[in-house]
């Protein structure tokens, strides 16, 4: 019921996916598909139309599921707004947590809570960090649920603790750090307005404004080309892949630094998630 129209969109988007391999014939298709995507974007807040709401539902169940050696749920996990408070929490992450003495993004914080609150071994959870055929990701589900509780809120990271300021600065430096066989940094593709790679528009993420706000405000997202709900961890995994870098460690401090840099730049931007996109 929820997904009845998706095969149609899926097909045209699979065609779009091949643009990376390049052929003139795809240009028109891409244009039409872009319009189509716009139309579907309007449906993102409709739980009947966006498959990511399945993740939201599963995440809600996981949040209240007792497990781990302590056999408790995550409901006492403090995401920064107080134990068990989820509403609006995502809009202020990444942030500094005193108990861990670290700046953490949502995924790092959830892993921390699983270990500290639940006494839960996260090895298998981390192994399943990204969903795929036959693989369900607890992390993607939990992020979908928690981020959705900030839908409609505006990004407002605190940025007052010295560690937060330090991590932001590190993230900014990493954004400009060039390496690997293509000499790429994030800035190669995301530091100018109105640029594109092949036909894909590239948001300028280096200055506050609409581009970075709309970008950050639309993650987590259901990626039609992958038929999965994805989080920012996966997006940055994908960009480092294009940069010819090795696989970055999941929930590592460098990824959090980049995420804080981007989220701070997106300050004031409205969160509308889970969204749906290519």
């Amino acid at each position, binding site marked *: 019921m929820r997904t009845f129209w998706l095969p149609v969109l899926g097909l045209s988007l699979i065609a779009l996916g091949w*643009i*990376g*391999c*390049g*052929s*003139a014939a*795809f*240009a028109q298709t*891409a244009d039409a598909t872009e319009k189509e995507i716009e139309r579907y974007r309007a449906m993102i807040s409709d739980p009947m139309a966006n498959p990511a709401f399945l993740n939201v539902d599963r995440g809600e169940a996981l949040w209240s599921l007792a497990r781990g050696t302590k056999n408790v749920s995550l409901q006492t996990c403090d995401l920064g707004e107080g134990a068990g408070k989820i509403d609006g929490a995502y809009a202020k992450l990444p942030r500094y947590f005193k108990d861990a003495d670290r700046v953490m993004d949502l995924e790092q914080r959830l892993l921390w809570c699983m270990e500290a609150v639940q006494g839960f071994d996260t090895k298998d959870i981390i192994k399943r960090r990204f969903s795929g055929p036959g693989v369900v990701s607890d992390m993607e589900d939990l992020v979908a649920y928690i981020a959705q509780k900030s839908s409609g809120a505006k990004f407002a990271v605190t940025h007052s603790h010295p560690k937060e*300021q*330090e991590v*932001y*600065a*590190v993230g*900014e*430096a*990493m954004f*400009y*750090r*060039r*390496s*690997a*066989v*293509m*000499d*790429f*940094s994030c*800035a*190669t*593709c995301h*530091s*100018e307005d*109105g*640029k*594109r*790679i*092949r*036909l*894909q528009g*590239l948001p300028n993420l*280096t*200055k*506050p404004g609409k581009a970075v706000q709309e970008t950050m405000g639309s993650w987590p997202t259901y990626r039609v080309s992958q038929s999965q709900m994805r989080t920012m961890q996966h997006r940055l995994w994908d960009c480092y*892949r*294009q940069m*010819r*870098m*090795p*696989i*970055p*460690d999941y929930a*590592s*401090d*460098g*990824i959090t*630094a980049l995420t804080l840099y981007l989220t701070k*730049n997106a300050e004031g931007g409205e969160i509308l998630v889970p969204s749906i996109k290519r």
Partner: protein
Amino acid sequence: MMTKLLQLLTALLSFATLLAPPTLAQSPAKVSPDLVEAYVKGTWKTPAEGWQARIDQDDTQRACSLSRNQPAKAEFDKILAREKAAVVFPADGVVLGKWQDGEKVAQIGTGGQFTDSPTGPRGGNCYACHQMALTELSYGTLGPSLQEYGKIRKYSGDDAKAAYAKIYNAQSVLPCSNMPRFGHNKFLSEQQMKDVTAYLFDPESPVNKK
């Protein structure tokens, strides 16, 4: 005439954006490069065998990163001299291969990603950043248009050699260019670079023919 004018204008415009300093959000926050490198280390704790070199920076990558691709004059000159000295031309001096194979080099965007097979197709992905053949509508805009590149240069042998050097090492011409150093980083083979140079310089190539 009108199109010539337009071309000139777009060329001038893209030149202007190249020279304009990028607009920064706020002046960069101060952070020690050592701290940044510690974070980098923590993000790739145990890279797959043979991949550590992808993380480590050479002197040029480091200088461009720290200056956000705006090296001061002295640094600029240093990079230019170093990268220029590192260009290796084909032993026989022939920089033109087969344009038909060069088209594949320009089109293929895979190779070297952690999801790619080491033996799979590998290309320069020139179309990610450049307009080339008029018939190819799926092109990116990170670099200037290279449409009619050889034709405009009257198929000059010296210009072809300069283009080969540009492809081999973009920074031997412009320090901290966003364009990859395809030969320097051993990403493309000599043959691939000759072929893509031919794609730009062969009168029969769709880059030069309408």
